[in-house]
């Protein structure tokens, strides 16, 4: 049997999941803004752990790199620049509580809807080692990648070695993602980069002190 199906993964999942939820709860309950930001980073890290358990190493690493290594650090940096933080700065009244709660409920509803809408069967079966699904997955990816251009080459043919094929799909998440970004969703990708560029210029304009030459 393989290690994926064993109790080790289950135990790891529960540890990571509990950590993620606990950290997320602490983010909103802890009074100290600095600690809240630190717990946010911890929540991001735990999410990265979940990605690892899902065999999405690329996503996990990117999660750490961007959310933990860059976004949270900048949040903490900003928190440190603003003085008198340890005293805490409580919510600004009932309006914010209600607005926040409403937003949270809406978000939760959306996630639950998406979870129920998604067809999880093929992923479940693939994880359980169902050869048929694995073959289907393999075929699907091969169909997406035009063969012969060096973009995606799976190890083995569609039906040659299902185990290797399934692993191949997971081993090459980066390549698959890259193909999807550059080929199928290139428009969205470029639009997002334009948005990011605009944000960057906006940030520069904000940060530039008026009248200062430097």
């Amino acid at each position: 049997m393989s290690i994926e199906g064993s109790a080790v993964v289950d135990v790891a999942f529960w540890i990571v999941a509990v950590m993620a939820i606990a950290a997320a709860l602490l983010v909103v309950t802890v009074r100290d803004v600095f600690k809240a930001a630190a717990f946010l980073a911890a929540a991001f890290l735990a999410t990265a752990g979940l990605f690892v358990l899902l065999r999405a190493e690329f996503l996990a690493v990117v999660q750490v790199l961007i959310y933990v290594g860059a976004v949270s650090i900048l949040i903490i940096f900003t928190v440190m620049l603003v003085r008198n933080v340890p005293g805490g700065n409580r919510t600004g009244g009932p309006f914010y509580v209600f607005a926040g709660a409403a937003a949270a409920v809406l978000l939760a509803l959306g996630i639950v809807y998406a979870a129920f809408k998604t067809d999880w069967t093929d992923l479940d079966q693939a994880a359980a080692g169902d050869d048929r699904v694995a073959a289907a997955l393999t075929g699907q990816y091969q169909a997406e990648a035009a063969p012969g251009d060096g973009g995606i080459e799976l190890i083995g043919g569609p039906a040659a070695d299902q185990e290797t094929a399934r692993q191949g799909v997971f081993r090459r998440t980066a390549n698959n993602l890259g193909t999807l970004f550059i080929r199928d969703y290139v428009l969205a990708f470029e639009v997002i980069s334009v948005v990011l560029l605009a944000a960057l210029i906006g940030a520069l304009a904000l940060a530039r002190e008026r009248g200062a030459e430097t």
Partner: protein
Amino acid sequence: MTLRTEPVTINIGPHHPSTHGVFRLRVTFDGEVIVDAEPVFGYLHRGTEKLAEERTYVQFVTLTDRMDYVASMTNNQGWVLAVEKLAGITPSPRGVWLRMISAELQRIASHLVAIGFFLQDLGAFATPLMYTMRERERILDLFEILCGARITYSYMRPGGVFQDAPQEFWPRLDTFLKEMPHYVDEYERLISGNEIVLVRTKGIGKVPADTLINASASGPILRAAGVDWDLRKKDPYEFYDRVKFDLPLAKESDNFARYIVRIQEMRESLKIVTHCKEQIEPGPVRPKEVPFLVRPPRGDAYAHIEAPKGELGYYVVSDGSIAPYRCHVRAPSFINLTLLRDMLVGWKVADMIVTFGSIDINMGEVDR
């Protein structure tokens, strides 16, 4: 819209690695930029001037050692010159030559310390400091041969010095004079062309020359601004009119100029020592007729010398007894700090340390 950060006040010192002793600087930062700086002194105040009033003129020599403790010889020299001026003592020539030799060696040693710690303040991981300390050790060895002490020499007396240089001193001095220029070249190779040193020091800590004059700055700081003022040339005491040397000047008045002036002054000091060694004549090192208990007539006198850090002056008032009635020390380190705030405001934390190091102060002298 402007983003404002709140200014923060930090105490640099008295226990800070780069304050060269127990100096304290209350600095207000806006981020990393200095908005305000105020020096606070007195952590090493021992009342030296008051102690002088209870000691004989010779006894006080030992206390002058403790003022600028990296340049004790020049402290001695200033004091004995003041006493000689006050009491009308003519020193014996050999004693004067020996005083000049030791004072110039002391200048080299002091500049070595200044450069070493200046680079240490720049963040060089002790390497230049170790190099300069290596040569300073040799000077201290020479002084040890001369008077038996390595830091607090008390070598000089009104009228000369207290003992002649032993025979083994001269060959050791010759070797030192022969090798030292190469070591100075080595510092220059290591430091002067270093790109990081250049970007960290050039143009930083600039003060115009007339401001420096108005603020009574003296020594290498003044000469780094292009002011041609060295008491050895302008008001020659001892036999400085009989030796040939140049006056290194720079005109940028920044931290690098102060460093380079010190480097060049070390070379000039070596020249002076060589000249002294050539001209020294045999004879007593101290006139026999000068009594041990000097009893100057009533009156006052002010003697100033070019100490390594600037103009070191002693104002002595005598009431005709064996102890000075009043002794005031014009300490170069102390007065050079007048302009510290001007040099610092607008620069960054790192520049502050470097500028402070470039002034080359000694807390023993500042606080006295």
